[in-house]
């Protein structure tokens, strides 16, 4: 009897529950009507010195292809949330940022403290932590508009450009939470990929330049809607942020030199120019880098921080050509001691250049502070205390490089 009564209570509860909630479930508008899907956010400084936020929004529609209709909505505000509220008021929907894959920073806004501007995103948890951060030399809104013209199936759309080359280019993989991590670390330097809008009509030449430049990480990726329209251009350049503000821009040739010190960048092309040995005479040899492993050994000797690097490369031959560009169809036995030395010298030279750029501009995107601080904490503190200005520690850093290379036929 008791069991039957309990059972009835449950049944009546379920009936009551359905009666209360079913009408509201049926009559409540679907979320797609009240919430928009944002793919990208652009942040600029407006003419009135306010924050201008733009959002690339998908407009759902019945379609037989995978090309969504996009809308660019933008509004000004005193803060990020203020501008977002204004966009919401303008489009009549709330902004859904869960699918936002990119945050684009216009060049002008980069003189402000970016983590302070983005603070709302990281605290509110309304956006995924791994949204990529991208700098553009012009207006972020312009980049979003160009991106919106591209179809989703286009391999060179903004999403692919920001996500591609993750293993090739250290700047291409900076998410906005990385910026916060670096901002909060003792060496607050970040490297952010720079993508620009190219309004020239040479789109086909841009996209065909990949590979011929000699290094995949410095190649251009472009996307066109029509031959004469604007293109998205990712030429491998990047912007260095110091304490959340833009410090300087590095071109693609400078950026790839920093790749040697980054463990995440695995692939790339390595070109040894004007190589001569017993068989080959004055040829350019390009190798495909398959993998790379780096061992750090940080020591402070006579108050000089010395970073010893052991870089192990696994490569395969891509092409041998003479300076005139004629290809060697037969693969000669190029892989001898002279070639190993040439590779070692090339890596050494690149790292020396990277260090030189860092010293001149006093930035540390190679994370040298953290390497010494974590491995030789006491000695590092002691070393810093001997400096007149501890922020200038890069001036005293030396790097020793040992490169080993394995050829995979």
């Amino acid at each position, binding site marked *: 009897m008791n069991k039957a009564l309990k059972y009835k209570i449950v049944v009546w509860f379920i009936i009551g*529950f359905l009666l209360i909630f079913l009408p509201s479930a049926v009559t409540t508008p679907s979320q797609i009507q009240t919430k928009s899907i944002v793919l990208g956010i652009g942040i600029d400084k407006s003419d009135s010195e306010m924050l201008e936020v733009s959002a690339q929004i998908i407009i759902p529609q019945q379609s037989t292809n995978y090309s969504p209709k996009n809308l660019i909505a933008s509004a000004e505000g005193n803060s990020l949330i203020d501008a977002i509220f204004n966009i919401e008021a303008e489009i009549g929907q709330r902004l859904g940022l869960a699918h936002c894959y990119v945050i684009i920073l216009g060049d002008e806004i980069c003189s402000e403290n970016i983590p302070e501007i983005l603070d709302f995103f990281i605290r509110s948890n309304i956006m995924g932590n*791994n949204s990529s951060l991208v700098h553009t030399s012009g207006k972020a809104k312009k980049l979003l508009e160009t991106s919106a013209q591209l179809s989703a199936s286009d391999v060179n759309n903004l999403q692919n450009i920001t996500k591609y080359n993750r293993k090739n280019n250290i700047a291409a993989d900076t998410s906005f*939470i990385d910026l*916060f991590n670096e901002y909060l670390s003792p060496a607050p330097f970040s490297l952010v990929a720079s993508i620009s809008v190219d309004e020239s009509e040479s789109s086909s030449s841009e996209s065909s330049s990949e590979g011929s430049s000699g290094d995949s990480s410095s190649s251009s990726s472009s996307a066109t809607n029509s031959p004469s329209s604007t293109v998205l251009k990712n030429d491998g350049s990047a912007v260095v942020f110091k304490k959340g503000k833009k410090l300087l821009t590095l071109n693609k040739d400078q950026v790839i030199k920093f790749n040697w010190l980054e463990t995440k960048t695995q692939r790339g092309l390595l070109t040894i120019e004007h190589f001569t040995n017993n068989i080959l005479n004055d040829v350019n040899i390009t190798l495909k880098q398959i993998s790379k492993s780096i061992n750090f050994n940080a020591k402070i000797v006579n108050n000089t921080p010395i970073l010893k690097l052991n870089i192990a490369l696994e490569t395969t031959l891509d092409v041998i050509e003479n300076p005139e560009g004629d290809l060697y169809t037969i693969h000669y036995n190029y892989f001898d001691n002279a070639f190993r030395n040439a590779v070692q010298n090339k890596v050494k030279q690149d790292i020396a250049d990277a260090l030189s750029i860092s010293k001149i501009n006093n930035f540390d995107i190679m994370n040298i502070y953290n390497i010494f601080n974590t491995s030789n904490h006491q000695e590092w503190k002691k070393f810093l205390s001997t400096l007149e200005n501890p922020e200038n520690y890069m001036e005293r850093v030396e790097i020793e490089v040992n490169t080993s290379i394995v050829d995979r036929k």
Partner: protein
Amino acid sequence: MKVISSLQFTFISIFLLLSTKVFTITPYVFGYAGKDSIWSMSFGALIDLAILVLVIVIMQKNKEITFFELLKKSFGTIIAKILLCFLFVFILLKALFLYQETHSFFLQILFDEFPLLLYVIPVLFITGYFAVKGIDTIARSIEIFAIFVLIGVIICASTAVNDANFNYLLPFFEDGIGPSLDGLWAQMFYRGNPIILLCFMGKVEFKKHFNVKFILSNFILLLMLLGTALLFYMVYGPSARYVEFALADLPQYDPFVSDLGRFNWLSVVVCTFALFLTSSVFLYCLALIGRWILGLKRSIIPIGISLTMVIILALINQFSLPLMMERIANEWLWINASVLFLYVLLSFGLLIFRRKNE
């Protein structure tokens, strides 16, 4: 009287340890201990383990009587009931926090808008129903779902291994032991769940070598939780302080995972099974203690009282997790830490008392 097997009891203990340790505690501790948080968490895990050993020894020594009977025998009825009142408050606050944590978790992971009533009524009903059905039903359910929950925790945590950077934790104790101790104190609200196991005294069917297996399995779970926390700190680095739900955010962060499709549903599974069933355990214990205090035979009234108090306290905190976390840091931490300290002393007292009697 023996209603749950030793295996079921082990799983209940595991769920109690798991429930408040996988989501908010990890980023919360980081706010106090910074990169020494993993040490704070380790010290906290040691405290949990020590309490667990203490509780299991008391339970083994008093296999045939309930906790209330033990207290009555030792201190008399009035003091026993007063002590149980403290335990009631201790469990009530934890249950409330668990309900709130689950609500906020769903709000963040599953829905952008989540009507409060749609959460409160079904959840309180389901957990209340479990509690009415009794510990054997809860224990059996936990026994069935435990393995899936544990696998879910492991997968959620391990997806972000690629992004882990051990350097975020170095150098250890850069500012001395102070931050670690701050972090340890901050998590005292979350710790001490094994004390709740005293409510199951006299209901567990102990088998041979149970103690070793029980402590070993809980120790492995604590190591697993520490591993999850370690990964979380290594993945998020200084940004850990901004994250609300550690286990839910770990699979979100990894670009590899987000390219393939997120594993969030696994954390939803973990949350649904682990938190709901643990809430049911809390509610059952509240009902049991309520019955002991009020001298009732049925659980309906104490469950009704407990749920009403949960709703009132949640309303006071506006059903807001940040507000509740602030209240925990300022008030509830002291309450629960005091009760925990009292019960640890009491447990030692009970052991000494028994030895003298013997």
